[in-house]
C-alpha cells in the first residue's frame, strides 16, 4: 500500500532509538515507530488513528479515559524537550522527554513528536545525588578529623605545660612547707586543678579516637577498585571536560589499610588536583599506581600552576588559608603516616603542575 518513499521513511523511523510519533492537528496518531512500541507496550496497529492523550499527557489524573485530547495545544507548540508523562499499556506512568515540531502537509498540519524515556537518566541522577551525599559526608568527616588533629596538637602543648607547672608547685610545697593547714589546702586545690586539666586531655583523646582511632577497620585491600571509586566520587560536580587518565600498574600487591581513610586521602588529592586545573584552565589529571621497592605509590598529577613556595610552606598546616581546596592535606598526611606510609609532594611550577604521591607500605606477608 505504501509508496516507496513512505516505506523508506518508515524503515528510517523504525531504526531510530527514540520513540517517534506523528500526529495530526487533532492529536490523532498517524505514525508510531518501533521504539515507541517498545516504550509504550502498544503495537502501532492499536494506536494509529487514536488520540495521543491515551499515552502522553502533561499530567495523568487518577482516573483517566483515553479520549479528550485536551492537550492538543500542548504538543502543537514546537518545543525542544519538556518533561511530560507517558502511560504504558500496563498502566505504568513514567517520565518522558517530549520534543515536538510542526510540519505542513497536503492534508493539514502534522506534528512530529520525539519521545525519550527519562527513567535511566533519573536513575543516574539519583545515583549522583546519593554519591554527592556520600561525598559531603566524607568531607565532613575529613573536616572533623582535621579539626581534631589541629586541636589535639594545639591544645596538648599548653595543656602539658599547665599540668607540669601545677605539679611543680605541688611538689615545691610538699618539699618546702609540708604539713601546715595552708599548704594542705593549697595542695588540695592544686590536685583539683590537675584533675580538671587531665579532663581536658581525655576529652581531646576521646575526640581523636572518634575520628581516627578506627584501627581495627584495616584490612588487605586491592587499591585499583578503591581508587576507581575515589575518582568517581571526586568527579561529581566537576567540569565535564575533565579527563582523569589512569595508569594502574598490573599485579599491584594488596595493602593493609583502612579503605575509607585511604579513599578519603585519594579523593582529597584528586579534588586538589581538579581545583588546581580549574584555576589554570587545564583539564587533565593523571592517576598512576606503581610499586617502588616495598611500597606502593599512588601518584596524582595535575596540569595546574604548581604550588608557590609560600603555599608550599603552609601546605600541610591545618587550617591553612592559602589553599582553596586545602581542606584535609594535613589529615591526609597524618592518615598516610599512621599507615606507616607518607604523603610527598613535588610542587611543580614553571609550566608543570603539582605532583602528590601517597606511599603505602607493602605488608610483609604480601612480599612473597
Amino acid at each position, binding site marked *: 500500500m505504501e509508496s516507496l518513499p513512505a516505506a523508506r521513511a518508515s524503515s528510517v523511523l523504525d531504526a531510530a532509538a527514540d520513540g517517534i510519533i506523528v500526529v495530526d492537528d487533532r492529536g490523532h496518531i498517524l505514525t508510531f515507530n518501533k521504539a515507541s512500541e517498545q516504550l509504550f507496550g502498544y503495537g502501532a496497529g492499536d494506536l494509529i488513528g487514536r488520540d495521543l492523550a491515551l499515552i502522553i499527557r502533561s499530567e495523568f489524573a487518577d482516573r483517566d479515559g483515553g479520549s479528550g485530547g485536551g492537550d492538543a495545544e500542548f504538543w502543537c507548540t514546537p518545543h525542544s524537550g519538556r518533561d511530560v508523562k507517558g502511560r504504558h499499556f500496563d498502566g505504568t506512568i513514567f517520565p518522558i522527554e517530549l520534543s515536538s515540531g510542526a510540519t505542513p502537509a497536503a492534508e493539514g498540519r502534522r506534528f512530529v513528536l520525539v519521545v525519550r524515556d527519562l527513567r535511566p537518566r533519573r536513575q543516574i541522577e539519583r545515583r549522583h545525588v546519593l554519591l554527592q551525599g556520600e561525598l559531603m559526608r566524607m568531607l565532613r568527616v575529613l573536616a572533623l578529623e582535621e579539626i581534631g588533629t589541629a586541636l589535639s596538637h594545639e591544645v*596538648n602543648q599548653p595543656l*602539658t605545660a599547665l*599540668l607540669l607547672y601545677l*605539679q*611543680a608547685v605541688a*611538689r615545691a610545697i610538699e618539699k618546702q612547707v609540708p604539713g601546715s593547714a595552708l599548704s594542705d589546702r593549697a595542695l588540695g586545690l592544686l590536685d583539683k586543678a590537675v584533675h580538671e586539666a587531665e579532663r581536658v586531655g581525655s576529652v581531646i583523646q576521646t575526640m581523636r579516637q572518634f575520628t581516627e582511632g578506627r584501627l581495627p577497620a584495616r584490612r588487605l585491600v586491592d587499591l585499583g577498585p578503591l581508587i576507581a571509586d575515589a575518582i568517581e566520587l571526586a568527579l561529581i560536580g566537576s567540569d565535564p571536560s575533565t579527563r582523569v587518565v589512569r595508569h594502574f600498574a598490573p599485579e599491584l600487591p594488596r595493602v593493609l589499610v583502612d579503605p575509607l581513610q585511604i579513599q578519603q586521602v585519594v579523593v582529597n588529592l584528586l579534588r586538589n588536583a581538579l581545583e588546581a586545573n580549574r584555576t589554570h584552565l587545564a583539564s587533565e589529571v593523571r592517576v598512576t599506581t606503581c610499586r617502588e621497592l616495598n611500597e606502593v605509590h599512588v601518584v596524582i598529577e595535575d596540569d595546574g600552576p604548581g604550588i608557590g613556595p609560600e603555599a608550599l610552606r603552609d601546605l600541610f598546616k591545618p587550617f591553612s588559608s592559602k589553599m582553596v581546596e586545602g581542606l584535609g592535606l594535613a589529615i591526609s598526611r597524618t592518615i598516610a603516616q599512621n599507615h606507616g606510609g607518607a604523603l610527598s609532594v613535588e610542587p611543580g611550577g614553571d609550566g608543570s603542575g603539582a605532583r602528590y604521591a601517597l606511599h603505602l607500605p607493602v605488608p610483609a606477608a604480601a612480599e612473597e
Partner: protein
Amino acid sequence: MSETSKSDHEIFIVDDDPAVRDALSVVLTLENYHVTSFADGGGFLAAARTRTPSCIILDVHMPGRSGLDILKDLNAQHYAAPILIISGQGDIPMAVDAVKNGALDFIEKPFDADTVVTRVREAIEATERRRTNAGAPDGLAASFPGRELLTPREREVLAQIASGASNKEAGRLLGISPRTIEVHRARIMEKLGAKNAADLVRIVLSQQGSPIGNP
C-alpha cells in the same frame, strides 16, 4: 638514687614550645637535676656532640628538622645517653619510628610531672646499670643467624624475652615501657624472621648448646 647525686646529672630538653620547655625544666630542676634546654635541633646537636648528658628529652614533632632527623644525625643508636621522645597522640607512629631509630622510649602528651620524673629516673638508672655491666655477657649466644642485624638495645630486649621475661619485667629492667618493649619485640621478630616468641627462642638457641641466661 640519693638526692645529692642528682645534681651531677645533666638533662637536655629539646622542644620548640617555650612553655613545655620551661615547665619541664622547672619540674626537673625541682628534682635537683641540672637542666639545659634547647629550642631547636641545631643547638642541641652541637652541645650533645661536645658533652654527654645523663638523659635527653626530645620532642619528636618540631618544625624544620624533625625529631627523627635529629636522632639520625646524632647516631642515636650508639649514643651513650638515653633519649626519651615526647610526642602528641597523632604522632605515635613517628614516636615508634623514633624508638626504632635509637630513642629509648616515648612519652605521650599530655603527661604529668610524676610520669616524666619517674621515666627520667628509670632511664638514667637503667643506663648506669648497663654501663656497670658493660663487657659482661648479654645472655645471648655469641652468634646466631641475624645477630648482626640487631641494634644494641634490640639485643638487650631479645635477651630478656629469651630468658622468659614478660614485657613488663623486661621494661622495668631496661627502663622502657612495656609498650615500647612490644615495638622492639615486633622489630626483632621481623629482622630475624621469627613468627612467634617460641620461634625467636629457637633461633637464638640454634647456635649454642646451653640454655640462654644460664652461662
